[in-house]
């Protein structure tokens, strides 16, 4: 049984149109699953649902999110939060806004260990120091005493990565963890996440719109369009022969895998209308029971 199993998850804007359409995906222990799709496809929404941080304006209409076999959606809020806090972690998209400006770095790494997992402060502090060393931050002691605004974006993302791994979670959701960074730093951060994941054996749900990244860090892949999973496959199979026309177009649109000099090839109109027809057919079938 996979560690994370999302089953037929549908969410919508309250009384509004669906944003996720019966999404199913698994992440096995220690496995890395990529989640790709164009902007607005619902990638972040899946991550938020798993971590229990959907905005209040959005409701789950059906489905299950099984974390280690327990359906999170059936747990009372406080229990759900604690279970997620103990087993999962988030590497957020924008390191500049993800750290609390009025707390020092140290407590922002150790808070979960002490408050949720019951570590002693001394153990947690030692752990924070080790983690900062592991994410290659020079002078960890000084950094632990710093405030976020004193550190660069790349530095802060390293800290957030360290913080995500602090409690040895079984699953980490990384939501486009390099998009907000300088191009020069992106590669290092990506390498860092991949290395940490391998060393700690953590399962990873990796949200990205960059297939190049997928080929480097992921084993499995879900392709999302309009909140619908159009393809769920192994990365090797995907790059060899994508099954869905939309996936194929997405792959073709990624310059590195055709000709880097060619630039971006847009997804053809015909493919878009085909996949949109699929979505419409899905919505009709839901409406008619």
């Amino acid at each position, binding site marked *: 049984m996979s560690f994370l199993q999302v089953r037929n998850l549908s969410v919508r804007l309250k009384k509004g149109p669906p944003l996720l359409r019966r999404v199913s995906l698994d992440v096995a222990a220690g496995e890395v699953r990529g989640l790709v799709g164009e902007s607005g496809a619902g990638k972040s929404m899946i991550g938020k649902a798993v*971590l*229990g*941080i959907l*905005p*209040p304006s959005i409701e789950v209409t059906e489905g299950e999110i099984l974390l280690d076999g327990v359906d999170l959606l059936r747990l009372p*809020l*406080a229990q759900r*939060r*604690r*279970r*997620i*806090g*103990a087993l*999962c*972690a*988030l590497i*957020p998209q*924008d390191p500049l*806004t*993800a*750290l*609390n*400006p*009025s707390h020092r770095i140290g407590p922002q790494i150790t*808070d*979960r260990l002490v*408050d*949720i997992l019951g570590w002693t402060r001394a153990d947690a502090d030692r752990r924070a120091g080790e983690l900062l060393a592991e994410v290659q931050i020079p002078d960890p002691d000084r950094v632990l005493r710093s*405030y976020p*605004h*004193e550190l660069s974006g790349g530095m802060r993302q390293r800290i*957030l990565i360290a913080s995500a791994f602090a409690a040895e979670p079984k699953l980490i959701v990384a939501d486009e963890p390099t998009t907000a960074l300088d191009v020069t730093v992106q590669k290092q951060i990506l390498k860092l996440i991949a290395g940490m994941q391998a060393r700690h054996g953590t399962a990873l749900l990796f949200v990205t719109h960059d297939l190049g990244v997928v080929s480097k860090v992921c084993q499995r892949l879900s392709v999302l369009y309009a909140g619908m999973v159009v393809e769920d496959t192994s990365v090797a199979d995907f790059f060899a022969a994508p099954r869905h026309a939309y996936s194929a177009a997405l792959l073709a649109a990624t310059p590195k895998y055709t000709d880097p000099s060619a630039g971006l090839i847009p997804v053809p109109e015909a493919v878009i209308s085909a996949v949109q027809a699929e979505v419409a057919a899905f919505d009709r079938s839901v409406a008619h029971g």
Partner: protein
Amino acid sequence: MPFLRILLVRLLTTAITLAGVAVIVFFVIRVVPGNPIAMMLPPGATEDDIARLSALYGLDKPLLTQFGIWVAGVMQGDFGTSITTRQPVLDLVLGRLPATLELSIMALVMAMILGGAAALTGTRFRGGRTEGAIDVANGMALSVPDFLWGLVLILLFGVLMPVFHISGRVTPSLELPFTTNFYLFESLIRLRFDLWADLVAHMFMPALALAIPLAAIIGQLLKQSLKETMNLDYVTLARTKGYGETRVILREALRNAALPTLTLVGVQFTFLIGGTVIIERLFSYEGLGNMAIDAVINRDLPLIQGIVILFAVIFTGVNLIVDLLYTVLNPRLRHG
């Protein structure tokens, strides 16, 4: 050192402000009709008597000369002599200041507790009936001025259910062992909780009347600010760590949300101090405000000048403290 720089700039602007206030108050109270000497003399006094006394208080000299004499005195710490009581203005004013400061600070503390509780509760249960009820209560608190709240409180807790005293600062028959006029503070230091309770029973209603409108402002601003903060990324990240909503509000959001509220509270607190004038009168509380009204009624020019200057010093002082607090609480300014 932004700290020192802020302090210096503020001291300079404070000096300019005070000079302006001194000029305005001095000339305005001399332009309005009403002769202090005529007011203090019994009916039937002759023109001669009035002229003699006016000369005694220097009121016969040209305005500019009078101003010069007054400013020269103030520079040396001499604010003149009260016409009605014939005591030094500085002694009178400083003697009353502690009563007003204690009342204002008590009111501020009440406002922060009430407003803070309203904001936190409203944020915790946002989008529901509780928040709606809090908004309604806030609106009511804001739409009634402090002195009307004073009347409401007198009716409620002075007449209907007489649990608090409606007049004075302390029960007159009590023996007071105090060496300063900070009665409330000193009663605590001396561990005289009996006196402290009596003082609080007197102060409670005037302080609450002053606090209610400010509590509503704090409640609204802080709730708005908290709700915005609750959508920020670092708050969301804290939720994924396993914290409950109350913990998230208190630990992640409150401090950051309180910063923008703080400056506005500073301005509002100076309004509150202004409100003490009428509230002290209403509750016969022996503070500066009550004295100010007497001074105006009696046209006690030197006393009015002294009180106004002191209020101006308090106002600018409050603003200075708020600015410094803002720097202390905001790590980005502290090191920047």
